[in-house]
């Protein structure tokens, strides 16, 4: 049964999957890692983005990833709005930790149930020219439906990295995560900076949702699988570290892919949560933590 070909294929597929996982986790790295906002509803926004891609694809034949890009401004605004509510209700009163968590948990639940009310619990998928094609590199097959999301994920990671390190607003976001009072003394408004960053996080979520539905069909409850994954990745990578997020994503992608190939797909989900529990118990600061 055991063959190196199978393992090589699983590793390559895992690396490609990792690039996509990075895309899903970037938003959490930004909101949870840097802003300390526990946006546990992040995966629900990913699914919302996936359904936006599905609707545009099935009714107008638009390319899912193009749709994802087109929808980012809308999701940016939604994210900014959600953060304003969160700030007004919890952060300003200094009760963000517990009740804020419950707020986002409720939000996740509402989005999930609303989607299943509107679109039912059938699996939804998209069609595009590159889905189903693949190239063969000496026995190792590379499926385009994995390759394209991986490349987009890498591009998103690079873009976020450049944004945080090179631009004024990006540096301000880093500043918010370090010292809010100092930032205020420098004449910047932390709430405004956080609103921008949170909006970006949700926009990244929606774009990664378009990648998700390119890879595999989606149901409203898919978000639950990703709660563990995204938090496993952000914790493992080290909170707020963009490079760490990418490395952790690839580790998780390869681990899941190997597990699915060697033991069967029903075990692969346990990998992410197992890694999360292990990371939390042994080294909560993560691989590249501060």
């Amino acid at each position: 049964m055991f063959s190196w070909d199978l393992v090589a294929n699983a590793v390559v597929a895992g690396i490609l999957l990792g690039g996509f996982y990075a895309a899903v986790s970037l938003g959490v790295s930004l909101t949870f890692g840097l802003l300390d906002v526990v946006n546990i509803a992040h995966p629900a926004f990913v699914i919302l983005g996936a359904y936006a891609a599905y609707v545009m694809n099935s009714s107008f034949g638009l390319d899912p990833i193009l749709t994802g890009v087109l929808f980012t401004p809308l999701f940016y605004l939604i994210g900014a709005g959600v953060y304003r509510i969160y700030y007004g209700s919890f952060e300003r009163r200094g009760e963000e930790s517990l009740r804020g968590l419950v707020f986002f948990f409720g939000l996740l639940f509402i989005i999930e149930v609303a989607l299943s009310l509107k679109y039912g619990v059938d699996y939804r998928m998209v069609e595009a020219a590159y889905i189903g094609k693949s190239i063969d590199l000496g026995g190792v097959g590379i499926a385009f439906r994995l390759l394209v999301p991986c490349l987009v994920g890498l591009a998103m990671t690079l873009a976020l990295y450049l944004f945080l390190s090179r631009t004024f607003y990006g540096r301000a976001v880093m500043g918010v995560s370090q010292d809010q009072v100092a930032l205020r003394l420098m004449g910047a408004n932390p709430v405004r900076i956080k609103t921008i960053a949170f909006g970006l996080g949700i926009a990244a979520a929606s774009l990664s949702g378009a990648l998700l539905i390119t890879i595999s069909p989606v149901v409203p409850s898919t978000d639950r699988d990703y709660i563990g994954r995204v938090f496993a990745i952000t914790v493992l990578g080290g909170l707020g570290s963009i490079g760490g997020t990418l490395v952790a994503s690839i580790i998780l992608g390869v681990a899941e892919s190997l597990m699915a190939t060697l033991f069967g797909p029903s075990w692969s989900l346990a990998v992410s949560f197992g890694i999360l529990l292990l990371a939390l118990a042994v080294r909560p600061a993560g691989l590249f933590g501060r």
Partner: protein
Amino acid sequence: MKIRGALVVAVAVIGLGVLLGGLRVNPYIYFAGYVVLQYVVIATAWNVLGGYAGYVNFGTPAFFALGAYTSIALLEAFRAPLPVLILCGGLVAGLLGLGIGYLTLRLKGVFFSIATFALSVVLQTLIINWDYVGGAKGYTLIRPPVPFFRSWAVLLFILMVVLAVVTVLVARTIERSWIGRGLAALRDNEEAAECMGVPTLRLKLFATTISGFFLGVAGAPFPYYVTYVEPSSTFDLNYAVNALAMPMIGGTTTWLGPVIGAVLLGTAQQIATVTISSELNLLIVGVVLVLFVVLAPEGLTGLVRKLRRGRA
């Protein structure tokens, strides 16, 4: 209310339950009543950890399902009687609670919550791959003839009345003892409490174990109630959301809060399931939860307290 007064009320509630069990009303009342009372147990048990100690547990389904699956394993192995199932279901879930109690040494706040959620998914994966208790296909229980009572519905209903009363009594006793005050202290500021000599670790272990125990107790009779148990409905996210929402709506600082929340929200859900649709009733739970956290963070009991203070 003194302890004796509380006991009188408890016995009266159980008596009322038995009386209701004797009446020849529509059997659906017992089925619906069982679910509402089950939520009283779940919400109260969750609140011992979440409300008193301030550790938010997202893993309610794990404990509930562990109770249910312990029952199934014992039924499969020895055809154990119901009281044994309830006790063992509680003990196994209590052990898991003790385990997550040690987790609190390293994980505070948000990280604890995420870890409990992860725990629930890992446990579900294990159960799906464990064929002895039915695996992904599920387990069908053939109920033996009902002892003592008219029907299983009546028996289970009265059983849940008793379990709910016991759970609430225990929670109330904890709340009013030095343990409750210690938990409240560590909820407000764990480091300060530790410095003042509050044995925070032992109290946290106590809270997680008791909370886990009663969540398991709530799940243990579940196989008898549904007769068909499968992982995705037993590990349902609804349990996690309801366990949070009910105490939040009622108020988390007293034993009365979760009871009020469970009765109100549980009954509303039962009515909505029958009259509208089961999907829509979930949406209602979510919206009500978010509205309460944003607008009335102290819950209904907090609102009442505020109104009284305003008038006085």
